[in-house]
């Protein structure tokens, strides 16, 4: 596979796919950059023109922007933390020889296949609803007051819903990593007098480190762009309590019809996501080398 001829040929064969991907990326990006420097509001189509950095300034100085950044961090960080810790624990559990392990595993994995809008609707109307919801029913059964989830703890509620969706993914990846843990290493640790906790701390956890970074990387990419769950449940509210960056961009574009401002927001989101990606890929790269 290393002769000059095959190398040239393989590059040639790759070209159409790479070209298509490049166009797919560069056209929308250029358009967004172009619009971000335009004064362009659909409600005032006559006032178009070059806007300079105004759109960026406007987007960043918007008080909702700081709130959105914080909400995004809390959302991504919270879900990551819960899914990784929960994923390790569930993975350990599912790795045991329990009765009906196959069925239990499928049950665990299934939330991942439910589409975000449906999941959010189910949680909103059937579980978390203060009147008809199952949690409210349970609270009343024990004589408590039902919690109005989306009014009192809106961001936490979103975190719970997203966690429910992503926990299976984390569990699945971590479970496969656990299954590849060398049996003889564990036996060696047994001989060396390691307790169950010490074995977990010194053998299992380091073994899982690589899988954990992969989970963190993949989840971060998707969690940065969470939208459906917010749109369906809280619409970013109350106030800006559950507005994350993607939702803020959406609200500029399709609630204020400010194409220029939304494009500027989009570019800012792209830059922030790339900064995160660089750090993550470095962290993962370090972990994969070891």
């Amino acid at each position, binding site marked *: 596979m290393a002769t000059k001829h095959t190398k040239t040929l393989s590059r040639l064969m790759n070209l159409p796919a790479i070209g298509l991907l490049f166009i797919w990326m560069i056209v929308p990006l250029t358009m967004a950059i172009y619009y971000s420097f335009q004064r362009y509001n659909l409600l005032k189509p006559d006032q178009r023109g070059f806007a300079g950095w105004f759109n960026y300034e406007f987007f960043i100085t918007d008080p909702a922007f700081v709130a959105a950044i914080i909400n995004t961090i809390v959302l991504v960080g919270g879900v990551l933390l819960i899914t990784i810790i929960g994923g390790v624990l569930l993975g350990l559990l599912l790795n045991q020889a329990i009765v009906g392990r196959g069925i239990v595993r499928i049950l665990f994995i299934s939330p991942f296949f439910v589409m975000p809008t449906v999941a959010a609707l189910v949680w909103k109307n059937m579980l978390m609803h203060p009147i008809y919801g199952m949690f409210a029913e349970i609270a009343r059964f024990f004589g408590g007051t039902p919690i109005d989830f989306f009014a009192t703890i809106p961001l936490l509620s979103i975190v719970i819903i997203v966690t429910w969706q992503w926990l299976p993914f984390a569990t699945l990846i971590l479970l496969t990593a656990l299954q590849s843990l*060398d049996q003889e*290493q564990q*036996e060696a640790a047994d001989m060396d007098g*390691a307790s169950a906790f010490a074995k977990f701390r010194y053998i299992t956890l*380091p073994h899982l480190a690589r899988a954990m970074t992969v989970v963190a990387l993949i989840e971060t990419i998707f969690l940065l762009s969470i939208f459906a769950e917010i749109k369906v449940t809280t619409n970013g509210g109350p106030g800006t309590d559950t507005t994350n960056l993607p939702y803020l961009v959406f609200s500029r574009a399709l609630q204020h019809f400010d194409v220029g401002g939304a494009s500027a927001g989009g570019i800012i989101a792209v830059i922030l996501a790339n900064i995160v990606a660089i750090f993550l890929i470095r962290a993962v790269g370090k972990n994969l080398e*070891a």
Partner: protein
Amino acid sequence: MGNIVLEKVNKCFGDVEVIPSVDLDIKDGEFVVFVGPSGCGKSTLLRLIAGLEDLTGGKIIIDGVDVSDSTPAKRELAMVFQSYALYPHMTVRKNIAFPLKMAGMDQAEIDKKVEAAAKSLNLTDYLERTPGLLSGGQRQRVAIGRAIVRSPSAFLFDEPLSNLDAALRVNMRIEITDLHKELKTTMIYVTHDQVEAMTMADRIVVLQAGDVEQFGSPLDLYNKPVNRFVAGFIGSPKMNFATGKDAEEFNAHEIGFRPEHMTVSTTEGRWKGVVSVAEHLGADTFLHVKTENAGTFVTRSDGELNINYGDTVYVSPNTDKIYRFGADGLSL
């Protein structure tokens, strides 16, 4: 101290009885090798002693204490695994220190012991590397280092050399033998390679289908095998066997004679045959001689022998070196 006694040890996996009943008395400081064909239960027996498998019946007594239900750590044995089982994310230093750390020893003491072990195993330059960067032989030495730092009452080796190439295997064999001479600790060593068994052991346990066939010194096994199985298993190339009229002549059901106890001649001898394979090893020549009516025999003669494939030769056993077996396979 490392006196290990097995009393009526029995092990079943579900309905399958792997080890029916084994009695052994391994003396302190002895180098004992478990040898047998694959699937004979030798590794299972070792794992039972280590405590990695539960006994189905019987007792294991170490230094007078019944440890049948003790955890592996409580038995104070150290084991070297076939895959080495090093901890991949720890440096060599941390690997060797791990059992000491688990025992709660203080750091200064640990450092001292690790340095000493590394020095005796030529690992000092590699202490800060991870196992992934080491060669097979070095990994093997790290595994041994991890075993010796604890000063266990006995070492258990589970086919430790089977992942090494031939030259390295010979070296490590000598290193382990030296280690035993130096430490004078009981060692139990599992292998399927009878050359390893013969060269290293004080005493060898020959196992077949979970039963101890014979327990004795290498030369005992070679000179006085108790039955046909041990006779055929110990020695390389394998012993030749003949039955029928040839055996009746010696008042036996079957007779055996080793390749090195045979004479090859181009003119006269007991059996006439054709050479089907001639292996010239330099020092020795192995001939596989297909006789007319007694089967194929392997002979061992010196390297200068000028006999080749297809030649007709006569082979005869040295009559004073013949092993006689009864119909039940036992030696007569």
